[in-house]
């Protein structure tokens, strides 16, 4: 079963004082899929991301990534293993340029060490060259080429979101976990984002997506898991989930299109 699963977690719990942010949550992400994680505000989606990426220690949980069991303790290890994420409250390196932000993303896939940095061996220089080219390509990929020399903190909100995606892609993840990438985008921009996500998938990546935009989620996700008050209340194909009464009640609302 788990052979074709990229991410397979079960029984993840996390509490903050009295708040049970996650209560025995399980989630599977097959290779090459786009899986959506949805749910009302405060349901625990971001917390789930924080836990699987090692930012918050889990109270309990079983974690398998690409068939290997892991315990998410160190964020950087998780990233190296191939799970990259973006942040709901954008966390760019504000003082750095847009290009540099992406170059930082290349950190874990490059290896120049201290001596390399100091002595600039030919190999180091070649690597730097590659990092730069790769980063420029990624900026073009998300449509930010024009802004490459701008300081990241000066970008508008929507552009910052794209930059986060580019930066995450630079870590060459197998699984890209996106926390509300469409927030702050208008419908047309969302369409572009949708294209981008599909392209990313087509390029062989798997995506785990937190998103409140129903049409986007329903449109591109192969599978949805719905959280409410830290519990999974529904899970399945988008078409099934959207009919689920509890989901409608807690999340979609009657007026949902």
């Amino acid at each position, binding site marked *: 079963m788990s052979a074709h699963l990229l991410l397979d977690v079960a029984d993840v719990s996390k509490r903050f004082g009295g708040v049970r942010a996650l209560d025995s949550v399980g989630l599977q992400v097959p290779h090459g899929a786009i899986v959506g994680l949805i749910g009302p505000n405060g349901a625990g989606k971001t917390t789930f991301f924080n836990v699987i990426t090692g930012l918050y220690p889990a109270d309990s949980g079983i974690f398998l990534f690409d068939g290997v069991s892991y315990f998410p303790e160190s*964020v*950087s290890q998780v990233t190296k293993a191939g799970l990259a994420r973006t942040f709901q409250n954008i966390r*760019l*390196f504000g003082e750095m340029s847009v290009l540099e932000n992406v170059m*930082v993303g*290349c*950190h874990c896939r490059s290896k120049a060490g201290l001596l*390399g940095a100091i002595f600039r061996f030919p190999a180091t220089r070649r*690597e*730097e060259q590659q990092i730069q080219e790769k980063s420029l390509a990624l900026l073009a990929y998300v449509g930010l080429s024009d802004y490459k020399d701008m300081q990241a903190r000066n970008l508008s909100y929507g552009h910052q979101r794209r930059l986060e995606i580019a930066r995450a892609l630079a870590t060459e993840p197998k699984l890209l976990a996106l926390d509300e990438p469409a927030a702050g985008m208008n419908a047309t921009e969302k369409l572009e984002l949708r294209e981008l996500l599909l392209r990313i998938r087509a390029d062989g990546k798997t995506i785990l997506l937190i998103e409140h935009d129903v049409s986007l989620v329903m449109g591109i996700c192969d599978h949805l898991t719905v959280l409410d008050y830290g519990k999974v209340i529904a899970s399945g194909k988008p078409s099934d989930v959207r009919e689920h009464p509890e989901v409608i009640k807690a999340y979609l609302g009657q007026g949902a299109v």
Partner: protein
Amino acid sequence: MLRKLVKNHPIHNAYLGLGVIALVVLPWLVGVGGGNYWVRVLDFALLYIVLALGLNVVVGFAGLLDLGYIAFYALGAYSYALLASPHLPNHFEVIASAFPQGMHFSPWMVAIFSIILAALFGIVLGLPTLQLRGDYLAIVTLGFGEIIRIFMNNLDRPLNLTNGPKGITAIDPLQVFGITFTKPLDLGIIQIPGLYLVFYLFLILAVLVTIVCLHLQNSRIGRAWVAIREDEIAAKAMGINTRNMKLLAFAIGASFAGVAGVLFSAFQGFVSPESFTLWESIVVLAMVVLGGIGHIPGVILGAIVLAVFPEVLRGVAEPVQKMLFGHVIVDVEVIRQLIYGLALILIMLYRPGGIWQKRGDQ
């Protein structure tokens, strides 16, 4: 900047040549125009450049506020003082018999030793402070600096390791390739005074350190540091091992200070804990911030300004008063302090990002 200069380009080569010539004749110009005093001031300014660049790696690049930086300088200084002075043989039979000629380790060996020692201490300081942020880190590093100084001050008993507050005297002068830096070097046609020789030696060190810093800044490691400074969580999410990177910053900054300390102690011939007070750490930090934190040319400028400026005041406070009022109305040193304090404030007010900050950082 330098990197570009080094690239093979006729104009750049010309600039480089001019720069080298300017630096080579600088002590002569200064020495003839202002006397050896100014050459000595420059010598110290060069040491401060090394210190400030080292601290810049920690504070400027990695964003770790370090108020105990001078401790590493002290480690270097004491290493040389102990390994190249009669102090230990005088107080320990064993050592005296092991070194019948006295202890005279070469500055180079001690420098290498100090780099390693200081780097290790940098890591030792770094390890417990990894989760600390901002001012919490500042106070812990401050404590570390004081701890080292207090040890230097008190390790004269039960065993007399450091001679306590009395300090260590009779430290061997700098000696490289048979050139002793306290004596003029006779080249036949020309005699180079010792202080000038020191200038050249310190200059070489400062240039090397500058190049290392420039290279680090534009590297994968330099970027990782800045990323940590900007947002540590996001940096981790980029796969950066923030722990190792922070430790590396501490270690590198410390090692610069270690080398500088060795040279300082050899140059001065005397070390005592008084040279390594919190105030010295603050001065070096002020150099970094005042010059332009994170910006190498700025930091160099900051070090020069703060090393030279007080000495300029020393010279002008009296004549200027005499010119203005006909006689001295306020003591020179008071004026000097007043202006120094005021200058720190004013420079920050008019150039909050430093005298010479990065482009686009205004």
